[in-house]
């Protein structure tokens, strides 16, 4: 019980440290640079209070549940055959992408802005596919003890090649897809899982091997989204 109190207290201190600079910056620009009054100050104050309380619960909750569970499951997975690891990694990656709140928001916005020519379900599935493959690559990197650049260098060169070949309009949204796929679930569940797996498998570089998965996840959807836009254009020019 006292552990729980200590955890909540640490989280509270951290959240105050984190949010006070944002509030100060906004206050300086609001009142000194732009000299505008705040509209609906009460609602704004309540919102800030809610956000801070939520932040405390979120940080404490992740340390209590998602992170230790991820570590434990990763350790257990280290004992299974590589084929099973790869299958679990793909399913987990795809599920995590669908779970990220920001992925839903981005898919919705792309649907809107493209006037429905890119359906949000299609976008979500393409992003999930990219994240699934990314987590598989991260697991294979741990199993075969590969440096991160062995995945990132060919990956980004492929992404750059696709960027040059693809219709300009799709490029910003494709890169944003990479940025939104790496949200709270990826950081607090997938990363501990790969870390647990790497530590259980051992080796000289076990600490560093589990990390990097988030960076790989950011790359996956960029490539699948660019590939989608290239495929759609090809179909248009054929038809």
């Amino acid at each position: 019980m006292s552990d729980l109190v200590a955890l909540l207290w640490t989280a509270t201190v951290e959240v105050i440290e984190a949010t006070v600079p944002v509030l100060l910056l906004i206050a300086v620009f609001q009142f000194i640079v732009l000299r505008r009054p705040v509209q609906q100050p009460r609602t704004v104050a309540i919102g800030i209070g809610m956000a801070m309380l939520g932040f405390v619960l979120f940080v404490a909750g992740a340390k209590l549940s998602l992170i230790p569970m991820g570590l434990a499951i990763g350790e257990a997975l280290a004992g299974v055959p590589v084929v099973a690891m790869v299958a679990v990694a793909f399913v987990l990656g795809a599920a995590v992408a669908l779970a990220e709140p920001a992925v839903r928001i981005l898919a919705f916005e792309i649907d809107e802005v493209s006037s429905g020519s890119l359906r949000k379900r299609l976008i979500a599935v393409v992003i999930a596919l990219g994240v699934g493959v990314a987590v598989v690559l991260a697991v294979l990197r741990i199993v075969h003890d590969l440096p991160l650049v062995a995945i990132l260098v060919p990956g980004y060169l492929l992404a750059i090649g696709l960027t040059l070949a693809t219709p300009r309009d799709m490029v910003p949204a494709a890169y944003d897809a990479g940025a939104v796929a790496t949200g709270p679930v990826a950081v607090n569940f997938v990363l501990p899982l790969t870390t647990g797996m790497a530590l259980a498998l051992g080796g000289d570089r076990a600490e560093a091997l589990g990390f990097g998965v988030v960076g790989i996840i950011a790359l996956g959807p960029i490539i699948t989204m660019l590939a989608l836009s290239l495929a759609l254009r090809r179909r248009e020019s054929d038809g």
Partner: protein
Amino acid sequence: MSFGDFRRELFETALSLAPALAFMLFAQVAFLRLPWSEFGLVALGLGFTVVGFVLFIQGAKLGLLPLGQGIGTAFIERRALRPLLVFGLLLGVVLTVAEPDVRLLTFQIEAVFGDAVDRTALIVAAALGLGTFAVVALLRITYGWPIHWALIPGYLLAIGLALLLDEATVTQAFDLGAVTTGPMTVPFLIALGVGIASVLGNQSRMRAGFGLMAIGSIGPVLLVLLWGLVRGAP
């Protein structure tokens, strides 16, 4: 915001976490077999996470976003480009420091590497990276530059530096670059970008409205890599 909004958001968050929750429960029953008292603590933590996330998002929508949007619009209406850029720089810095994902990632890095990493230095490098690249992204939207002018040299430089540096620095740089665009930063940057693009109104919305996050996530990668280069091998 009404209570209905709150309930819907709570439901959607729980639903979106459902695959992860099911996976955990399956692991617990099938092979993990923690004592149920311990698993109870985990369940409590999951409850905290879901409720905390919903409170955070709703609170940000209610309190922080209107503030950010109001400031963004005021800059554009007054044609104050330079103050806007200063604001973008500082906002990038403080948002990185405030980002929950950045806190939790650096917490995990510290837990595994111990004293071999300097958590504060990592956060500061990532913050400066997001700040400077937020300025680049704002300039891009204002002048309508194509996005790959920033993305292609940025990523080429990043992979070039990655080939020179040690594994720990490379993993930290790319992980941090990916997480700076978390639940705090994304809504703020989207609000700012879409707001500016709508006032300028002379370009394709598909091109102008998106991409702020994409450019924003290279900055921390580059700055953490550069910091690693300056610091030298550990």
